Structures are given as C-alpha cells and as structure tokens.
C-alpha cells in the first residue's frame, strides 16, 4: 500500500507536466511547433520503432558510450592504481591530469577536430576522456586510503607486496573504484550525446536529434530526448545492481 502510494506520487509530477504540455500545444500553431502534441510524438515514436531507426541510433550511441567507458575506464583504473601506489608517478602525472580536467570535454572539440577530423575515432576519444577522469581520480583516492589497521594484519602474517596489493589495497579501494566507474558511465553517456550533436556524421541519438531539429521535427527531437533520458537512467540502475552484487561484502549502511 505504501509502495503504491509512493509510486503514484512519483507519477503525479510527470502527469502534471504532460497535461501542461498538451494544453500548450493547443494554444495555436506557433505553440504547436515548439510543443509538439503528445499524440504526434507518440506516432513518431511508433514509426521510428517500426522502421528500426530508433534501434539503429540508440544502439549506435549505446555502443559508443560503452566502448569509450571500457577504454577510458580501463586506462583510468590502471593509471589510478599506478599513481595511487607510486609517489613519483603521483607527483609527475597528477598535476597534469588535474589541469587537463579543468577543460570541459567539449572544450577539446576544436583541437580534436583539427587533429582527427570528426569521424568515429574523434568521438570515441572525447567520450573516453570523459570516462577517464572520474575513474582515475577515485581509483587513486581508494588506493591511497589503505587503512593502517588492515595493513597491520598483513604485516602480522608476512604478506608480500603483491599479497598486500591483492588482498588489502585493491579490495579496500573497490567501493571507490565502483563509484568512479558509475560516475564515468554517467559522464560517458552525456558526452556521447554531446559529441554526436556537434559531430553529426554517423548514426547516434545526438546526430538524429540534430537532423530532426534542422528538419523542424520537434516531435522527433522529443522522442530522442526521452530515449536518452530513459536509457541513461536504465544504465545507471543496471550498474547499481551490479555494484551491489559485487560488493555484497559491504554492510548495508555503507552502500
């Protein structure tokens, strides 16, 4: 009963927005352009679903985001472990990373376009970069915050350096590494749509949005926007599930 009530509450606000939207769309032709009627949006959605356009673009964006997450995330974790363990590496690399991080991803766009053109490689590079930052920073923080209490247990049982790394440093850093990956996932998704909007070349939800805007098809833009939102949300939820599963050793309060 309580669940039902909270579910109804969660639906109340969107319902209100939709009602207002529909009302706006009926306020004359100019309004109907900016606020495409719900019925038309629904029709476009079904159409795009039927002719496979939606699947094509959504699939392309998803693939781009996940590939970049894999590349940027892996490099981020490796770099985070290395800088987390070695003072020298930390001193050399961390300032550079910190400075680079001040530049928003899209700030790299002109340079990357100049060097690599606007093909898939350039997009992948930028999205990977957006996934790299949160992973490297969180991994590094996790590796540096080894609890002395557990390190002492390792000393007591004669742990080698590799044993301490595998059995103490790495697992105790894992929760933060997961935090890094989940941030990277969110950033990569946002950056994917961003670079697609600006480098409109191959398939992708961002590319489709841009094309629809040029063709004055607000309804299609809206279908894409909704799709981006729902997919981002779903990715997030799936990752949260994975995290809970992999970190099941954590007490519930720490999650």
């Amino acid at each position, binding site marked *: 009963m309580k669940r039902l009530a909270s579910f109804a509450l969660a639906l109340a606000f969107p319902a209100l927005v939709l009602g207002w939207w529909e009302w706006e769309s009926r306020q004359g032709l100019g309004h109907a352009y900016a606020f495409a009627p719900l019925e038309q949006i629904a029709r476009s959605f079904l159409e795009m679903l039927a002719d496979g356009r939606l699947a094509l673009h959504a699939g392309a964006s998803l693939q781009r985001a996940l590939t970049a997450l894999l590349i940027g995330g892996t490099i981020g974790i490796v770099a985070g472990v290395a800088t987390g363990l070695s003072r020298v590496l930390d001193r050399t690399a961390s300032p550079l990373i910190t400075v680079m991080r001040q530049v928003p991803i899209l700030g790299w766009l002109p340079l990357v376009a100049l060097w690599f053109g606007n093909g898939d490689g350039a997009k992948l590079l930028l999205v990977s970069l957006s996934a790299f930052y949160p992973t490297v920073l969180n991994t590094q923080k996790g590796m540096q915050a080894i609890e002395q*209490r557990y390190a002492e*247990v390792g*000393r*007591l*049982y004669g*742990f080698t350096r590799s044993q301490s790394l595998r059995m103490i440093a790495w*697992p105790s850093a894992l929760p933060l590494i997961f935090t890094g990956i989940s941030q990277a996932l969110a950033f990569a998704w946002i950056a994917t749509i961003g670079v697609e909007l600006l480098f409109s070349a191959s398939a992708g939800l961002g590319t489709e949005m841009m094309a629809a805007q040029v063709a004055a098809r607000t309804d299609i833009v809206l279908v894409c926007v909704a799709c981006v939102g729902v997919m981002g949300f779903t990715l997030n939820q799936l990752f949260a599930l994975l995290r809970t599963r992999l970190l099941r050793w954590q007490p519930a309060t720490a999650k």
Partner: protein
Amino acid sequence: MTDHRPLRGPATDKAARRTGAVRISGLSKRYAMGGKAMTVLDDINLSIRPGEFVSIVGPSGCGKSTLLRLIVGLDTDYDGEIRLDDTRVAGTGLERGLVFQDHRLFPWMTVAKNVEVALLNQKLPRDRRERVISEHLALVGLSDFGDAYPHQLSGGMAQRAAIARALANEPKVLALDEPLGALDALTRVKVQAELQRIWMEAGTTMIMVTHDVDEALFLGDRVVVMSPRPGRIARIVDVDLPHPRDRASPLLHRLKDEILAELTREPREDDGTLVTFPGRPRG
C-alpha cells in the same frame, strides 16, 4: 615456518618445549604527543617461560596494547630489549601472533578466507590447508559461518573468528588483546574454557590482556598487574594452581581480592581512563 604439529594431537609435553620464551628487559616506550615526549611504558622487565600463560591487567591507557604491539613487532621503536628465544624482536614474524582488541577481519573476505589469511605464507598443501581452516572454525564454534562475511556476524562471533585466524598458523607466542571483551558472559565462560584447552594442547606461550580479573586468574599462570602514567608493572601474582582449574577455588577468590586491592590502591584524582584521543583506533 613449516611446523606440522598435529592440531588435535596428544598434549605436547610442556616441560619438553624449549621454544617460545619471551624475555623483556628494561623496556621503555615513548610517544611524541604535541611536540613533547610522553612515556607510555617505563622500565618493564618480564620473563615468560615457554608455554606459559601470562595475564595482564591494568587500568585503561596504562600501555597494555602498546606492550603487546611491541612484543609482536608491529612497533619496533622502543628502548630496552625484547627477545624471543634469544633473538631480538625487530619486526613481525609468523612465530608471533596477535588477536587485536578490535577483530580486524577483512570485511571483503568470508570468514573462512579470513582464517586462510594466516596460512598464506605457510607452505601447506591445499587439502591440509582446507582442513586446518575447518578445524579452527569448528574450534570457535563457527563451522556454519565459513561463507559469511564479517558484517553478518555478531561482535562476539567476529572476535571468535579473529581468534581462529590467530590460532590457525600455530604461533609459538600468541598475544591476545582483550580477546573476549565483546562476548556475552555465557559465551565468554565457554570460550575461556576453550582457550584453556587449546593452550594446554598446543603448548603455545600466551600473553593475554584483559579487564576481567576473574578471567586473568582462571587462565593465567601469572597475572601481571600494571599501573598507569607511566605504565609500569606494579605487581606479579603467581597463580599456583594446576590446569584445568575450578572457578570456585578459594585461592582464586583470595587472589582476586588482592589484585582488586592493588588496582584500586592509590586513588587518582584525574582518572586517565576518561581521556580519549579522537581518531586513534583502539587497540
């Protein structure tokens, strides 16, 4: 490090055991606190025979945990000398174990894996290692919890798992820092009896810190009474009773009164037990 004494084998003849002697002489320990040195342990002299059970009691903050950390070699910055069988202690070693005041199980490992931690650097064949783990879990009554994670255990169960971990690699000297402090009275009495049985069988030298004078007397061949600021040995009480002991023994009761009198002898106006240092983990 490849000591293959049978775990549940016949009782080792303690008189015949010649290893596991701890000799502490002229031991002092200072901590730097806010720029000035604070003496925590002052001129500690104590000779522990191989296979002996020594209990240590004393008010909070008198340096009991510090003393144990020095003995196992977690802290090597001290004046004076600590020797194990004529070798000066200069770091940790598998022949010396410690049960911490807090259990310190790795939260990311199951209970069985946590016990295995103690055996990682023992050259044991896989099947024997599995057996040692399950025997020790059974020993502390946690056979059904090998696959549980530490956060799924009660405080007392976690502490028992930590005892199993410390016993698993059969150290010559085992230091125990209030190992039963988190246990309820009933479990406590049970684990005390278990500890006594294990000690009698394995012949390990045990040095146990406790706040419970009954416990100190029930288990200890000797009870070391410490006084605070700086930490000193105020008195050493011999408990001249054979093991296993009867808790109702009149001698134990008489000694208890003596020790309690010693512990409450000089009234301290600023009771150090109330001073806590935020941020410093207990133990």
